[in-house]
């Protein structure tokens, strides 16, 4: 079906280190002592908590409802008791805390009632809603919700299933494809139907021959329009735009997405999760995590989401000289600030790093403008220019050089002969630009609100003035008769004469107002003792009597 493959520009070939962990089958990790399930799946999306401390939950029970268009459901990964709902560190470069549900497992691992979901019988929206409530989101990179990526279901011709797994050390997708090829393809078929694509391309790097073979065997039972393609091993072939380029030859320009060209991309892990959600009615509760690096027993484990990294590491046995841990791969992963961080759906790998395996980078030296980074950049950028602008905090210029097309793959920093941590500069720049964007939105809003408040105050003032003027005019019109009724004969005599001067008019007005006030005063009588019931009146009388009595007693005592 595919006649030829294409190349993307740039890329690097780091040592792959895949064999350490790819040899052993996936091991089912034991039930952890406790689970910390964050109510935030990504920076963008949060979930509303549905449980209370002390509540018993079953495996797969909803504990969080996704909020906003990007939110997805959150579930208890095993049965047990909710211990607390408190902030815990999340798997993020900042190491900051986020609200999480802590569950103490009861050891029974009791499921909710699982019912397969027949997506063919319901509307497309309902099927997407089901995936959303099952908490299905991307398991490869950024963790974008699958129901959003499935979009409107029109205009997609090719579905790309990403099994490239181009980062060194990671082998979780490799093992998944080797052991659960049928499940992955079944998920891919569901995704294809939901997105309305014609053909499915599964891209796998050619350093995983076993996975390619298993996937091909499974695909041969399905049909012609599913192709498993071996792509050349070159980091970052697993990048979405790069894989699409290699498989289809489409070069996605700046500011566009694959969907604009009829291509959508999902990770193999996501496809497998979709398969479990639809055919088994299981929400996303576990994933395969590679434990590798400086450990005694590297390998892949099926881990419940929410398992804390510290507990997980015991399975692999980190060696004594391990000095830090990396979540994700060595090129794009983040260094863990705390081992209390829980495994999430995007946690594909945890690498124990030692100074021998990952020597500390040599000191940063000045850029010599050799251009190596531009040759290595798979996004066709000029990292050295971006570096200058980022370093000088000239963010406008950095954006002009398409900073936001940078996928932070780390190729530039990998090849830099001056050992400049280029990606750190780009991340810094992006963060600053986003912060400015937020500030600008906030200040625009403040300006609009301030201007509206001023307008409102002006309007109120004008309305009040108009009301006063109208009232004054009314009084003036009624003046003769008002004066006559209020001030008696003497004033009437004055008013009867034509209002000769404004002095007289003012006097008459004052007199009228005085008369009105007097009248009002006379009309006012204490109101709260009117129309009382007989009981209350009796009570009042009793109180009065008591008071009277005491007064007389006091009076008797004083002399």
């Amino acid at each position, binding site marked *: 079906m595919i006649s030829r493959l294409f190349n993307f520009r740039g890329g690097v070939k780091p040592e792959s280190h895949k064999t350490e962990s790819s040899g052993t089958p996936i091991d089912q990790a034991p039930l952890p002592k406790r689970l910390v399930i964050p109510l*935030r799946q990504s*920076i963008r999306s949060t979930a509303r908590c549905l449980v209370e401390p002390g509540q018993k939950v079953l495996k797969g029970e909803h504990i969080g409802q996704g909020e906003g268009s990007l939110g997805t459901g959150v579930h208890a990964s095993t049965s047990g008791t909710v211990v607390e709902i408190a902030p815990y560190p*999340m798997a*993020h*470069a*900042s190491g*900051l805390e*986020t609200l999480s549900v802590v569950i103490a497992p009861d050891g029974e691992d009791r499921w909710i009632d699982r019912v397969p979901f027949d997506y063919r019988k319901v509307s497309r929206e309902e099927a997407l809603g089901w995936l959303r409530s099952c908490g299905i989101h991307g398991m490869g990179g950024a963790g974008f919700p699958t129901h959003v990526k499935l979009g409107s279901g029109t205009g997609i011709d090719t579905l790309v299933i990403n099994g490239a797994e181009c980062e060194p050390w990671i082998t979780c997708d490799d093992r998944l494809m080797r052991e659960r090829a049928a499940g992955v393809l079944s998920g891919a078929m569901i995704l294809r139907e939901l997105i309305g694509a014609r053909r499915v391309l599964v891209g796998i790097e050619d350093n995983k021959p076993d996975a390619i073979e298993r996937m091909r065997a499974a695909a041969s039972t399905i049909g012609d329009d599913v192709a498993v393609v071996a792509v050349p091993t070159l980091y970052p072939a697993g990048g979405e735009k790069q894989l699409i380029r290699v498989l289809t030859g489409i070069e996605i320009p700046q500011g566009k997405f694959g969907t604009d060209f009829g291509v959508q991309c999902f990770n193999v892990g996501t496809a497998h999760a979709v398969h479990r959600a639809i055919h088994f009615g299981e929400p996303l509760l576990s994933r395969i995590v590679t434990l590798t690096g400086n450990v005694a027993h590297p390998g892949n484990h099926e881990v419940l989401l929410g398992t804390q990294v510290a507990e997980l590491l015991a399975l692999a046995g980190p060696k004594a000289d391990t000095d830090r841990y990396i979540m994700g791969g060595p090129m794009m992963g983040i260094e863990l600030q705390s081992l209390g961080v829980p495994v999430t759906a995007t946690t594909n790998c945890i690498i124990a790093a030692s100074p021998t395996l990952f020597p500390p980078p040599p000191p940063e030296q000045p850029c010599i403008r050799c251009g190596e980074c531009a040759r290595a950049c798979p996004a066709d950028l000029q990292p050295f220019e971006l570096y200058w602008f980022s*370093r000088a*905090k000239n963010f406008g210029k950095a954006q002009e050089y398409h900073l936001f097309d940078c996928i932070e793959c780390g190729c530039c920093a990998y090849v830099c002969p001056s050992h400049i*941590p280029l990606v*750190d*500069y780009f*991340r*810094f720049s*992006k*963060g*600053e630009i*986003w*912060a400015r964007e*937020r*500030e600008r939105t*906030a*200040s*625009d*809003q*403040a*300006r609009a*609100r*301030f*201007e*509206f*408040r*001023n307008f409102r105050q002006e309007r109120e003032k004008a309305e009040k003035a108009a009301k006063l003027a109208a009232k004054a005019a009314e009084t003036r019109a009624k003046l003769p008769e008002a004066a006559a009724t209020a001030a008696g004969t003497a004033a009437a005599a004055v008013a009867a004469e034509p209002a000769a001067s404004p002095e007289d008019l003012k006097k008459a007005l004052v007199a009228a107002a005085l008369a009105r006030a007097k009248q009002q005063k006379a009309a006012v009588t204490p109101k709260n003792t009117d129309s009382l019931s007989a009981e209350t009146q009796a009570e009042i009388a009793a109180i009065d009597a008591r008071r009277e009595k005491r007064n007389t007693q006091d009076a008797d005592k004083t002399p």
Partner: protein
Amino acid sequence: MLTAILIMTGIAIVLGAALGYASIRFKVAGDPLVEKIDAILPQTQCGQCGYPGCKPYAQAISNGEADINQCPPGGEEGIRKLADLLGREVKPLSEEHGTEKPKSVARIDEQVCIGCTLCIQACPVDAIVGAAKQMHTVVAPLCTGCELCVAPCPVDCISMAPLAETVETWKWKYPVHELRSAA
């Protein structure tokens, strides 16, 4: 001679009409410079510059009545941007107008609030809700941190709380590490 005068008059009339039309058709409402300055100012509407809001201050800068270093919330960066825009020298923030502080939002101690509505009237962006003799509260996402509500409160129940860093607002740090001299 007459032809020349007629031609010149004709040209004058035509050009005059064109200019007159253009002055109506392409009339710029307001002063574009004021808008540009206003866009740089942080819109806290705090009045620390001595003017009742960011727009009046922008007007004053444009008229040459005010200096560019009178806005503490805008800080050094604001001054730099204004200097860039107006082609002036960057100068340090004027001390009499205040100091640059981390962004904070007002918080009302709801146990103490007596519901006097004074803070509601003081708020330049209508970010405080409440009614007479009812508890008031600050709508934090709308608060600009101008501190104008703090002074009017008769029971001192409003405090300024610096904004904590969250996962949404966290930023990667500048990777350049300045060398520290050995103490």
